[in-house]
């Protein structure tokens, strides 16, 4: 397979579209946790009940379309190889938890991969909807319609006082987790993100690095999401998240222009060094790759690097993860082999631009 073909399959179609503020906000996501009233939650349900659920979802929704989310494919997790499962996790279409499930867990994915519905994860259903760029309100509106569409056939576990009932007390109420993925290189360099995190936490929001371990962000990509699901309406939660993200966007823009004013040569040097490493290295670890990709992407956003498409960061952050590398190689790879393949894949991708 050529790299071009592989990328076409690997990058979700919706990721190629440009959304508002996509120089900083890479994507917006809303996830809803829902359960069938009739069956116990997956941790305690019999295999038979879980089978019923997954058979029902397959029967009712496989190959169906909802608005612009066409022809859902139904994928039983047990039919996937470990590498294929990992690839779905790396594309954020399923959770690591779902990937570990066997029998009767599945995922329903729309053709453009904007919608994925996990079946028999911690809850019976987990609906996820992605939008490119900063479009939380749009995503909320759509996910509500999707939820209503499913509810025509599913009797949800719902309680007047507690709301949508979920397996974990942390999700009860709205069952909603809204999040934005943000590229914040200037705030990260100037150590401002770390100073802002406590204030953001106080507002009931959580900040974490998306590709790195714990709260450390590789590639300066941060995910901001709501912590509280009970007591506030979905609209209010989204509004709070939106206003914090909006402020972060503004802070980031200001920090970028300040760096440009005060140390443009050093910034330019750093960006070009990273560009050089990505263009010529023969072995590269994922962390170094992420740092360099973040630099190059910033260079593109600031007009320092021209003729390289902006989507390079999003694409390569996804493609250079272990699952994808092994899928590209069509075999399992040792960490050393992965570093070699990662370097060559990045070089090839950069050459595609010229």
């Amino acid at each position, binding site marked *: 397979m050529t790299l071009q073909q592989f990328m076409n399959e690997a990058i979700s179609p919706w990721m190629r579209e440009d959304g508002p503020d996509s120089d900083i906000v890479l994507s917006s996501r809303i996830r809803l946790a829902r*359960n069938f*009233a009739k*069956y*116990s*939650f997956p*941790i*305690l*349900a019999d295999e038979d009940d879980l089978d019923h659920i997954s058979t029902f979802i397959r029967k009712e929704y496989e190959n169906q379309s909802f608005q612009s989310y066409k022809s859902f494919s139904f994928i039983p997790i047990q039919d996937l190889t470990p590498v294929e499962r990992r690839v779905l996790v790396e594309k954020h279409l399923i959770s690591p938890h779902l990937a570990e499930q066997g029998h009767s867990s599945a995922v329903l994915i729309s053709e453009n991969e904007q919608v994925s519905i996990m079946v028999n994860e*911690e809850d019976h259903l987990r609906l996820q909807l992605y939008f490119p760029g900063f479009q939380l309100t749009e995503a909320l509106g759509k996910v*509500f319609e999707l*939820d*209503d569409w499913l*509810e*025509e056939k599913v*009797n*949800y*576990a*719902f*309680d*007047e*006082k*507690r*709301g*949508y*009932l*979920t*397996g*974990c*007390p*942390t999700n*009860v*109420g*709205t069952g*909603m987790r809204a999040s934005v993925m943000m590229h914040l290189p200037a705030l990260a360099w100037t150590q401002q993100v770390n100073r802002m995190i406590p204030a953001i*936490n*106080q507002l*009931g929001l*959580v900040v974490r690095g998306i590709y790195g371990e714990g*709260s450390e962000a590789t590639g300066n990509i941060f995910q901001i999401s709501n912590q*509280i*699901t*009970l*007591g*506030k*309406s*979905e609209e209010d939660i989204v509004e709070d998240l939106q206003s914090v993200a909006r402020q972060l966007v503004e802070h980031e823009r200001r920090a970028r222009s300040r760096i440009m004013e005060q140390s443009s040569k050093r910034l330019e040097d750093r960006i070009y060094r990273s560009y050089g490493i990505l263009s010529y290295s023969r072995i590269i670890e994922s962390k170094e790759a992420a740092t360099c990709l973040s630099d190059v992407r910033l260079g593109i956003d600031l007009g320092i690097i021209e003729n390289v498409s902006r989507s390079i960061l999003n694409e390569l952050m996804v493609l250079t993860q272990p699952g994808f590398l092994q899928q590209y190689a069509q075999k399992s790879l040792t960490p050393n082999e992965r570093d070699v393949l990662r370097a060559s894949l990045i070089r090839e991708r950069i050459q595609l631009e010229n």
Partner: protein
Amino acid sequence: MECQECHKRPATLHFTQVINGDKTEVYVCEVCAKEKGYMTYPEEGYSLHHLLSGLFSPPFETQQNTPRKQTKELQCPKCEMTLSKFKQVGKFGCSQCYQTFEEYLDPIFRRVHSGNTAHHGKIPARKGGDLRIKKEVDAYREELQRLIKNEAFEEAATIRDKIKELEKKLGGDEG
């Protein structure tokens, strides 16, 4: 001032909670503050285990001289989740667990959801039909009160008709 939860110990702590925009003042003793979840853990990544354990010391049995009846352990009739298991895993087994363990839930939710215990969001379209109507009726009632206060009787009459109309729908097809 006595603690508003146990009404025994003096209230040594004062909390101001903002829930849905309403400010509530809470005066409690230290023991109740911990047990009832008024003290929240602001640091990120709290463990739910840590959070649940300690909450489950039976709420009002600190009273002395009251002989305690040895009762069978609380268990969900549907999924058979027991209270001690729930405490251990920190997860519900089914939707009925919410009723089964109801008396233990407010403190947990308060801690996890910054003082909140009740849902204020989306209602299922089909199932919640009645509930949606009830909420609509409530909204109209408030409107009605306001109109009456302002002596806008004509408008009030229209609203009253709307309420009657909606109330007819309530439970109408349930038989």
